[in-house]
């Protein structure tokens, strides 16, 4: 009886050893490459690969090589391999990393409209991807180029970190549509930014009598870099006379604002556009 039990235990242990399975998985695989998994032991088992990047199941013959095709697992990330037989469970992890070659960019450029000569006014962020839309975590040089017509482009090169490269650039001195481009490897992306004139720089007006009224008019209104301030910008003429204040709002047309106001002798006339104040006149009846 004892001898039978001993033989039974030995046989059972041998069976378990014989059917015990092992797996060998490469630690790192590049996206787009086949994955070779070596299994050890004998018999049949189930191979599972799971991770936030993918999942698959195969029935395998233990002791053979299992080949995972590139299109079965191509998302970069951490995967766990389970090899399960009737008597054992083995597991191992491996990583799929992005291909080092950049295939595309996701480029965010803000804002789409901004005034000229604004320090650090333009922000660009580029996310770098491989062919399988995996974030390329290895560092790459990303070129950002800001170009206005008839002006030399401004170029900045930034090293990406964990798939992200960012830049802040000044808007140029000239108004117009600027092209803002990000390039790395085969990836390129273009955005158009509208650079509009900034606030008025020097606001000056003149006055002359016309009939019984006073015609006030500004000089062509420009920002500090010489761009004509946008038509439609409101200019406010204010007349202070005998303790009373009256205002006239006039839009810019072709850079000039003008209005006709009562010609009160001794009146003080001022002009303003937004927060910019212009010169002041005192009307003494034509003297």
């Amino acid at each position, binding site marked *: 009886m004892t001898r039978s039990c001993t033989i039974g235990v030995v046989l059972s242990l041998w069976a378990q050893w014989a059917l015990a399975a092992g797996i060998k998985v490469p630690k790192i695989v590049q996206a787009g490459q086949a994955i070779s998994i070596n299994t050890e032991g004998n018999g049949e088992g189930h191979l599972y690969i799971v991770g936030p990047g993918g999942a698959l199941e195969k029935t395998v013959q233990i002791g053979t090589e299992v080949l995972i095709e590139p299109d079965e697992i191509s998302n970069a990330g*951490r995967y766990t391999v389970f090899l399960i037989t009737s008597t054992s469970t083995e597991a191992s992890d491996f990583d799929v990393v992005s291909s080092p070659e950049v295939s595309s960019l996701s480029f965010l450029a803000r804002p789409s409209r901004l005034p000229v000569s604004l320090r650090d006014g333009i922000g660009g962020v580029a996310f770098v991807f491989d062919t399988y839309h995996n974030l390329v975590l290895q560092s790459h040089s990303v070129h950002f180029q800001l170009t206005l017509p008839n002006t030399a482009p401004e170029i900045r090169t930034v090293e990406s970190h964990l798939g992200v490269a960012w830049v802040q650039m000044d808007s140029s001195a000239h108004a117009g549509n600027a092209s803002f481009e990000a390039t790395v490897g085969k990836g390129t992306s273009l955005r158009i930014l509208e650079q509009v004139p900034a606030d008025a720089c020097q606001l000056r007006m003149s006055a002359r009598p016309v009939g019984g009224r006073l015609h006030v008019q500004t000089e062509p209104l420009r920002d500090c870099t010489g761009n004509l301030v946008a038509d439609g910008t409101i200019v406010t003429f204010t007349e202070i006379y005998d303790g009373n204040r009256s205002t006239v709002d006039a839009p810019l047309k072709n850079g000039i604002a003008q209005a006709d106001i009562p010609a009160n002798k001794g009146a003080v006339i001022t002009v303003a556009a937004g927060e910019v104040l212009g010169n002041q006149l005192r009307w003494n009846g034509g003297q």
Partner: protein
Amino acid sequence: MQLAMVFLALLWLVTNVVADSVAQPVVQVEVPQSFGPRPLEDQTKDAVVRDYLKCWNRMSQALEENNAAALDTAFTGIAKEKLEGVVSQQQKANITASYRDRSHHITFVFYSSEGLSIQVVDDAEYDVELSDHGKMQATHHVKARYVAVLTPTEVSWKVRMFQADANVGDSATAKK
């Protein structure tokens, strides 16, 4: 008296087992001095951490139930597309996998100047539980570093990119 003590001991045991199974992950958050370019307000930091942890919960739910709709409130863009693909692969193979996160060490690494992108690095530990045709097969403990990019949406931050970094962390052997 002895019966009462046995009952109390059993009650304590059950309570702790249940508590362990729904335990919240341990979370550490770090904002380095070099973080930028946009400054990070405390409210934004708290909201991002809250919504990032929610993404783990939603991902686990989606992959445990093979239900891609569970991803809607936490993921967007390429991250959502990829996870939807994983759900589809799992459905095809008749398997499910749950991801019970145990701890996170979240480091903020980038906040874009216009406020539309925040990137975090997360040294996470989690348990992967594999089931085949509804029958639990194995669990496995994983340590991995994840890189995530979140973007603000109507009412919350959503994960737009979600990917593990290679060769960081290790894992324990499987248990059944």
